[in-house]
């Protein structure tokens, strides 16, 4: 009974040690990841409905109910793929690790001359000097390029063994460990961290932010105050810089003041505050100017949304109805604008558009009175991304490990060299052969170079 259980466990273990599984998992991850780049992720139902139409929306929703295709990177099956890959990486590494350790931690590296002699890539030449003389000049040269050298005397000559970088066999484990670090860091972040956003009008402060994935409210331990928001433009009209002056207030006391811009966030007590968007609030009160066509007189009146203003000279009544942060006119975006209604004495209603950027816009209407926005108090709000991710340093450690590990794994190898010298008549026969754990061609070239050097050595 016990035997059967262990063999079942063994089979599971065997299943996870296979490289074939790695290849299948990596290809599955690559293929399925495409889905989420084609179907926009984490949208609202109405966005999907609008994008795909009724039929395809229903079709995709059906799949979403089973496979979470609208949030596939957090779906159960994608997580399972990642989990399987993790188990695969861990099991493979453990399975091979003890064997690697045995190879690495060895006091006297074993060398088998026969294996070097059988190599096709070995180089041979003869030298007029005796093996003793050659030993004296070869040894310093070889030990310069290799960490470990050993000479074994033979009846009619000697055998020089050298090797280096035995430890680089550990490189691949470093890479695999880095994957575990990154996934673990991601997990820590998703459990203990959050990602939220908040819009704060200039001059105001808040503790409350909204979480991005659940849209729930989250209360911070401190208040964020937006003192000021500024946007600057290049001559071309492209945005140059978004800048928010923030103050962190803890227990009614200001503790930090900082101007943040994109790429330069504010960090406080593990919480990061990023410049992410901005917008304008509708001005509460504006000053309108009314210019009479007949007399040329200009009158200034204060106005607010839905508060009718009587225009002098009996020119009618004007009421602001709405504010738009980006208004359209004949298919062009003309930026911020007020929309209002002018009621003339005779009772005619005319809709009027007052773009803030173009004060003389209303002249085009050729009415009895030209209306414009003379001044307005502009209030921006800053859009901040507020995040906490305690897993980020674990992920960053993974980043460092993967770079170091890949470099070792790809470009360094355990290299072993054998130089055998034997007396043949009054000459010495020299054989040079080398083996490496990786990059066999590189080692072949190296053997060629070394044997040429040895042959020329005086």
């Amino acid at each position, binding site marked *: 009974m016990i035997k059967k259980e262990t063999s079942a466990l063994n089979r599971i273990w065997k299943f996870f040690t296979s490289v074939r599984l790695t290849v299948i998992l990596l290809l599955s991850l690559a293929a399925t*990841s495409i889905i989420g780049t084609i179907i926009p992720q984490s949208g609202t139902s109405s966005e999907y409905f609008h994008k795909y139409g009724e039929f395809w929306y229903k079709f995709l929703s059906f799949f979403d109910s089973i496979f979470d295709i609208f949030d596939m990177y957090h779906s159960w099956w994608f997580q399972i793929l990642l989990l399987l890959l993790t188990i695969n990486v861990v099991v493979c590494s453990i399975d091979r690790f003890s064997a690697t350790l045995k190879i690495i931690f060895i006091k006297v590296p074993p060398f088998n001359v026969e294996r070097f002699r059988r190599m096709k890539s070995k180089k041979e030449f003869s030298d007029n000097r005796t093996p003793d003389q050659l030993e004296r000049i070869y040894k310093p040269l070889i030990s310069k390029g290799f960490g470990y050298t050993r000479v074994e005397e033979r009846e009619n000559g000697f055998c020089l063994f050298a090797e280096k970088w035995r430890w680089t066999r550990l490189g691949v484990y470093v890479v695999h460990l880095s994957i575990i670090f990154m996934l673990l860091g991601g997990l820590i972040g998703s459990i203990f961290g959050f990602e939220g956003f908040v819009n704060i009008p200039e001059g105001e402060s808040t503790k409350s932010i909204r979480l991005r994935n659940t849209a729930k409210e989250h209360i911070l331990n401190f208040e964020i105050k937006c003192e000021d928001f500024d946007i600057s433009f*290049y001559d071309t009209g*492209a945005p140059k810089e978004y800048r928010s002056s923030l103050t962190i207030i803890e227990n009614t006391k200001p503790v930090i003041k900082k101007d943040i811009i994109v*790429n330069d966030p504010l960090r406080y007590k593990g919480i990061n505050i990023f410049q992410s968007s901005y917008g304008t609030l509708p001005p509460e009160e504006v000053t309108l100017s009314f210019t009479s066509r007949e007399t040329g007189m200009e009158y200034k009146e204060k106005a607010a949304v839905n508060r009718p203003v009587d225009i002098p000279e009996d020119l009618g009544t004007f009421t602001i109805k709405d504010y738009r942060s980006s208004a359209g006119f004949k298919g062009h975006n003309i930026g911020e604008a007020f929309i209002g209604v002018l009621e003339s004495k005779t009772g005619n209603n005319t809709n009027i558009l007052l773009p803030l950027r173009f004060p003389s816009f209303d002249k085009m209407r050729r009415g009895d009175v030209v209306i414009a926005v003379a001044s307005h108090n502009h209030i921006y709000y800053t859009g901040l991304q507020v995040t906490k991710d305690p897993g980020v340093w674990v992920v960053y450690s993974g980043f460092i490990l993967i770079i170091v590990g890949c470099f070792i794994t790809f470009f360094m190898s355990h290299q072993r060299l054998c130089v055998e010298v034997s007396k043949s008549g009054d000459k010495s026969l020299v054989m040079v052969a080398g083996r490496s754990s990786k990059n066999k061609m590189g080692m072949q070239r190296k053997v060629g170079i070394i044997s040429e050097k040895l042959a020329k050595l005086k």
Partner: protein
Amino acid sequence: MNSSNILSVTTFVYGLSAFLYILSWVFKKQAPGKLALWTTVFGLAGNTAGIILRWIESYQLGIGHAPLSNLYESLVFFSWTIVVIYLFVEKKYKNRTIGAFVAPLAFFAIAYASLSPNISDRIQPLIPALKSNWLIAHVITCFIGYAAFAIAFGISWMYLLKKKDKEGKSQLLDRFPSANMLEELTHQMVMFGFLFLSVGIITGAVWANSAWGRYWGWDPKETWSLITWFVYATLLHAKMMRGWHGKRIAYLSIIGFAAVLFTYFGVNLLPGLHSYGAMGQ
């Protein structure tokens, strides 16, 4: 003479070098091969001068930044890296037939930048999101990776052609390096590219974390770079499997480069944060 002019001339020089490499391969002549090499070196000098001059010009315009900020500049840099890595390979492996399969890639990249009416060669100011020291590290490492994959792609085609002709009848294929050598070279290039792609993704992640507060967000460009990474990771592991030497590795290398191209160009068709790499920019 401004940088755009120099880079237009470079385009034709690279075109000529690709033509000479192919000529030297097809007619088995040493002379055009040598000429091809020197043409390429000349083109590289122009390419380098163009990039440096563009950098200086941006400072003269008062909007100084490294010339790595839009599609035009990235394509120019892409062909520069392809040529640099190729010249290194030619010097090390002493075989010019590879040039016939790689030099055209460098030519296509810069020709697309110079000649496509959809790609503007104007120097534009940096938008706030791109104002970061990470820009240079991120773009350079990504494109070294892409260039190594491009060369692996060219060599994989050579491998497949060579394998098709089993009896070694074709005189054209006879001049290729041996199949083993081509496979080894593909592997070397993929390893080199994989390291740089990894560093490219990592620098992008660190940058994203300092700009947007998250190191990974499954934005289409991020995801496609990861897909590319998965494909090449598959290749590196498949080599350890029995029966997966040779052709299948070559196919994976070709699929991997297709993923690179989609990461580079195709993603601009999808919505996302990397839109500044798109057309008309």
